């Protein structure tokens, strides 16, 4: 059992932190970037690619770098520290993860390498309006000979308009299939808009849109989706850890430096105790999220990873709300302003909370598994 980074991992962290620290040295840098489409910085994305960060989770034979969940978690956490708007979890971990897991050798060769090099940014079109956290898509796939078409609506699809390629979940006979849709496919309409955390999402409509099955045509990919979603939930957990750590640091600094009634705010015990509680929330979340990554790394059965991801997401949901809300409250008015950083962290934590199942969603799932175990045992 070991919770420490090795020297290569530390070097990766320092490199990513250096790169992102330059790109988003101030809160204003991020605002500038998020103000114009696609809501993130293509140059920063390229630099991440050059550093190898975009290929980390993929096998070398697919064009990746053969690293693992720990390396992914390092990048995600640094993304979170500066709340970089680049779609690391969305494009690499989630959409890329689906291609790596379900794609044919040709598809992997075509997509993964380009993704790793920053040349191709895919998005996973999965969420549907009015179909909250459902596992049964309303988008349907129809087969005619060897040709498949999709019909229906996905929304909000994160990065859906900018995406060079859409991976789409759709109902097929016998389950849920995954499909690749090209940006210029007929019958495809994508309407982009801003999300509250500075990102972009799209309304994506399919009207008999030609699509290529990802992997074996007609196969039920529900398990693949569940696994990729779990990996993304854990990576989001790390992104949230980075964001929460920064929000707490900023709050702590503010309590030290800001004076009111002639004394620093940290003179007021009611405030410092609340900062202490924020620290408790952060450390508890850090423990669970890191553990979930190690469960992934351990390569145990899928069910164990799914459960660990749920546990991490629940803990992050609680911690994110607590820290996000308190960070603003302890700042007072300035915490409400867009010019100051802390509110953006609260925004981003809110977005992460509600992506891929919020805390209550995961709590409900976990509360149905109480009979499976006597006590929760973290170590094998």
């Amino acid at each position: 059992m070991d919770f420490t980074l090795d020297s290569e991992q530390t070097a990766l962290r320092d490199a990513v932190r250096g790169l992102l620290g330059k790109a988003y040295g101030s809160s204003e840098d991020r605002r500038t970037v998020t103000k114009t489409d696609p809501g993130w910085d293509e140059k920063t994305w390229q630099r991440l690619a050059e550093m190898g960060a975009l290929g980390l989770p993929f096998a070398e034979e697919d064009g990746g770098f053969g690293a693992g969940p720990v390396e992914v978690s390092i990048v995600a956490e640094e993304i979170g520290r500066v709340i970089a708007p680049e779609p690391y979890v969305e494009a690499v971990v989630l959409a890329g993860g689906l291609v790596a897991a379900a794609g044919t050798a040709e598809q992997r060769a075509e997509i993964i390498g380009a993704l790793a090099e920053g040349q191709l940014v895919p998005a996973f079109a999965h969420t549907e309006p009015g179909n909250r956290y459902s596992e049964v898509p309303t988008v349907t796939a129809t087969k005619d000979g060897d040709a498949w078409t999709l019909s229906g609506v996905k929304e909000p699809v994160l990065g859906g308009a900018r995406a060079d390629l859409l991976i789409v979940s759709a109902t097929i006979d016998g389950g849920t299939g995954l499909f690749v849709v090209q940006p210029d496919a007929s019958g495809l309409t994508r309407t982009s808009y801003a999300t509250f955390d500075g990102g972009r999402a799209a309304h994506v409509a399919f009207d008999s849109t030609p699509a290529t099955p990802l992997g074996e045509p007609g196969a039920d990919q529900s398990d693949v989706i569940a696994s990729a979603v779990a990996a993304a939930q854990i990576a989001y957990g790390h992104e949230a850890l980075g964001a929460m750590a920064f929000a707490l640091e900023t709050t702590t600094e503010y309590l030290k430096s800001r004076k009111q009634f002639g004394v620093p705010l940290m003179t007021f015990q009611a405030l410092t105790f609340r900062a202490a509680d924020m620290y408790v929330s952060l450390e508890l979340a850090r423990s669970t999220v890191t553990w979930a990554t190690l469960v992934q790394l351990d390569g145990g059965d899928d069910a164990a990873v799914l459960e660990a991801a749920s546990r991490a997401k629940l803990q992050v949901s609680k911690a994110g709300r607590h820290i996000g809300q308190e960070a603003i409250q302890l700042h007072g008015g300035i915490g409400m302003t867009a010019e100051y950083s802390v509110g953006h962290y609260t925004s981003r934590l809110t977005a992460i909370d509600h992506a891929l199942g919020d805390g209550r969603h995961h709590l409900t799932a976990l509360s149905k598994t109480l009979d499976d175990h006597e006590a929760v045992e973290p170590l094998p």
Partner: protein
Amino acid sequence: MKLQLSDEDIAFREEMRTFFTTQIPQDIRDTVAARRELSKDQIVRSMQAMNAAGIAVPNWPVEWGGKDWTPLQRHIWHEEMQLAGVMPPLAFNASMVGPVIAAFGSQEIKERFLPKTANLDIWWSQGFSEPDAGSDLASLRTTAVKEGDEYVVNGQKTWTTLGQYGDWIFTLVRTDPDVKKQAGISFLLIDMTSPGLTVRPIELIDGGHEVNEVFFDNVRVPAENLVGEENKGWDYAKFLLGNERVGVAPVGSTKRTLAQAKEYAKTAGAGGTSLLDDPLVAAQIAELENDLLALELTALRVVANSADGKPHPASSVLKLQGTVLQQAVTELWVDLAGPNALATGAADGSDVPDLARVATTNYLNYRKASIYGGSNEVQRQIIAGTILGLRG
């Protein structure tokens, strides 16, 4: 003890309900129901409709358009307004500067300002907060130096809500720097078109623009715009802030928003199923309803028992718990919207319900509720100090 309202109060409630649900333009109530921001024009039309009916400023002296209502009637007026999705009369006019002018202003200044203030012909902004003062309001630094029959004002105000619409601004300015900080403050009315006065918007975390900074660079203000006596401004401010706290619990609007959330939940589950069938969601809503009931009843206890003019001690609970529940309901909305909450910027053609799109901007925006107008920390300080006698 008894539960029922008097027949008179029931009739009054009915009268208010009818007025607010029929006499306020529907587009305004629709915007509130959509949880969207009202335009300046809508706010003006709404208040003017109330003023035309003589119920925009019931808390003012009768001779200036006020009503001799009981505290309970004023409460009913306020609640029915919120339940009907009507924005209360602009607080800067109706609850803040108006009562101060009516109580402390000269006859001349009353005549000059009160009618236009009641009718929102003048849009007032509030110039109290300053960047370095925070909750320590009295440490303000904006100065007003008398030169002949003018004051020359220099300094900066901040958190000026809706200042972009302001015609006039009522300010606290330092007129005597050499005395205890509370003793050297005056209450000055300033025309916002005066040379040297600039308004700079502050963008908030929800992307909206509702607060501003206001800069004063040698702004010359006629001395006749002073309210009451020089250096007595802190007394007037305390009077104003005391008024502000009466009936501050936003019970009616939270109740309406919670009922609306419950309605939304009925089709917000996967595939249009009801989220009320999710026991955790149902329990959360039931608990919020019960907490809100307790708050409403506390507000009723306060108004029922404050006929003698003394504020009921429980009144300080209202702002604190009122914002707690207001924020809890905005958080519930985000939970109900779930992943659809991300579609903040969606326009026509989106399949995400509009109420899901506005959920998070409202949530983020209402983080202010526990900060502005006396933060929850200040409220706890008041309860601990004033009610419980715990003075650190």
